[in-house]
């Protein structure tokens, strides 16, 4: 599996940490972190990661708004986005799919499984 660069946007520092550790341990991928939507967009623009893991529930600018903002920027709109959500319901999953995100991973998840899940979703 080729090395990938993953951007995790989540206001929870512990999530950033376990995602970083898990992905590194499981696949050895590079993980970039951002603790808000705005910072995430900046990082994405600057670093051009292979995939963005985006938390839905965030203060100020939530995941949906961040995703829409990402879509509005041509230089990042092609980067696949996978939502991380505590809302695991079928109806919500459909709603997220309709937005045009690449996939949804529900919390709680095991960060060691993330590389495999991401690869399956994005057909890497």
């Amino acid at each position, binding site marked *: 599996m080729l090395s990938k660069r993953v951007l995790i946007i989540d206001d929870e520092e512990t999530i950033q940490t376990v995602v970083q*550790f898990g992905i590194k341990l499981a696949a050895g991928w590079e993980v970039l972190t951002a603790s808000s939507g705005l910072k995430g967009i900046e990082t994405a623009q600057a670093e051009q990661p292979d995939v963005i893991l985006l938390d839905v529930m965030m203060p100020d600018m939530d995941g949906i708004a961040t995703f829409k903002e990402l879509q509005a920027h041509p230089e990042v709109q092609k980067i696949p986005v996978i939502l991380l959500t505590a809302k695991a319901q079928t109806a919500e999953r459909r709603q997220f799919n309709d937005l045009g995100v690449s996939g949804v991973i529900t*919390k709680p*998840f095991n960060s060691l499984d993330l590389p495999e899940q991401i690869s399956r979703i994005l057909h890497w």
Partner: protein
Amino acid sequence: MPKPSQQLSAKTHQRQNQKRQLQPLLENLHDAIALINNQGNLIDVNKRACQLFGLSRRALMKRSFSSFLTAFERESFAQSLRSGQSLIGELCLCSADRVQREVEYSLTPNILLDSHLLLLRDISQRKADMAAELRRQRQRIELFSEVTLKIRQSLQLKEILHTTVTEVQRILQADRVLIYQVFANGTGKTISEAVLPDYPTILDLEFPEEVFPETYQQLYAQGRVRAIADVQDSTFGLADCLVEFVEQFQIKAKLIVPIVQVHPQALSDQNQLWGLLIAHQCSSPRHWVEFELELMQQLADQISIALAQAQFLEHLEEVVETRTAELQEVNRSLQQEITDRKQIEAALQQSEEQLRLITNAMPVLIAYVDDQQRYRFNNKAYDDWLGQSPDAIYGSHLAQVWGVDCYPQMQPQIEAALSGQVVAYENEIVLKNGNRRSVDITYIPHRDDQQLVKGFFALTSDISDRKAIERMKDEFISVVSHELRTPLTSLHSALKILATGRLGTLSNEGQQMLAIADDSTERLVRLINSVLDLQRIESGQVIIDRQICDAANLAIQAAEAMQALAQQHGVSLVTQPQSVSIWADADYILQALTNLLSNAIKFSPQGKTVWLTLEQGQSEVIFRVRDEGQGIPADQLERIFERFQQVDSSDSRKKGGTGLGLTICRKIIEQHNGRIWAESFPKYGSIFSFTVPVLE
């Protein structure tokens, strides 16, 4: 041959001879004769005429006949005389001595040359007699009318009879007048009497049959009247015994008329003798005159009429009595009915008051609505909530009371209730203070004896507080669940990372502890997922998105998803899919199936089999999950579908169950209008089945 003069002389002589012969004849005639000339003066009269005019013959000569007439007759007589015709008529003649006489006259004109014959007959006496007779007749009629009137003034027979005898006694000046009633056995009795004080009374005296034999009765019945002037006179043919009998009472003369009874209902027109009206003269024999007979007969007829009337009256009284008794009976039962009704009404009123008291005390809207959607009963809550008093609402249409804000939502439910369905729904209403409230409404149809819907009972309760609490609960569960997930993710991932040993090696005990922490975390995750699922389904946030899907496909997907778990537990998972199109939300049916399969696998001993089968029914597909586990006691088959109701909680905890799986399954199936149930055969296993409608 005699000479003409001789012949004339002979004729004159002959005439004088005849005159001489007639003279005494005419002179002594009973009628008056007078000759008058053309001027109407008397030229000759006979003796009777002198008497009539009250003057001597000499004094009458040349006297005008008219001077004896009244002024009016004088003129008409002069006219008649001038006409020269024979005349017959009546005149009123006034004699010289001022005596007026009615006379009948006949005038024969020109009986001799310029002499007219006037024959006059005095009819004064005859006229006076006639007038007297007329007067007498009128008096009798008046008397009769008077008596009849007196009789008719009463309807009481006894009084009528008494009046009759009293009046007859008075008019006839008889010594005794009585009414004798004939009985059926031939005897009889005096039942009414008017008698002068000088003579013995025979009232109430019964006559033996011998004095009034059957033959007499028949004769009287045919209308015989007996007028006996003298009882001693044998020409009247009274039997000796009867003469003897009547003499006891000093009877010298008697007059007997029958009183017959006419039977209006009788087939024959034969009259029956009821009794006799008898007048006695005791002072002397008496010759009974026609008028007396007539009076007696007429009064006897009046008695007959009175009898018929009395009989009719009696009949009428009987009828009245019967009818009165009937009416009294009717009245009595009516009174009873009224009393009963009053009691019922009072009881009803009391019960209604009680009902009103109870319903008024309820903090819910209670009403009865008729089939025209008009209020027929409302409790006080209507006043408190809507500001409309029950009195004001009574008879109002629901649309009037609820207005355009609420009525449109109510209308289909009202129509359903009036078609006979029990309806329960939730609605929002606006109170008089403008507050919106959530209400739970139930309509219960009211059917009459013929099962026709006459209206419905409406119960509306305020569920706003409950709704608010439910919302808070839902929000709380939702928030808590979400908020728990993030730290759980960190915890879960951190434990997994530690377990890799890549961050340092733990002792065996340390690894054991790590495994416990990891398992518990996973269980906590499942529990939170289930709680959230259930909360969403119950709060109605879940939208079942039904589409056509293949039941076989769902079964295969579920089996595939559970295959790993089955292998882990050493259980064989067998499916017998059957292709049937169903109308369902595939994700949710899959969730229910995996849930049931996961339970079956977890509760099956190693080496056993779990079956997932499909069966197509008339309008539904039955999904069955069968295991070979230890089974479920019969009394718990229903309970297990309620939350946290595992058969053995320690056992299920060991299996990692949350206690919410079956509850979620039931909710999902109910949302699909299906049924879910469990059957169990202890020691042989259990079958969990649910239905989903097929696509029609």
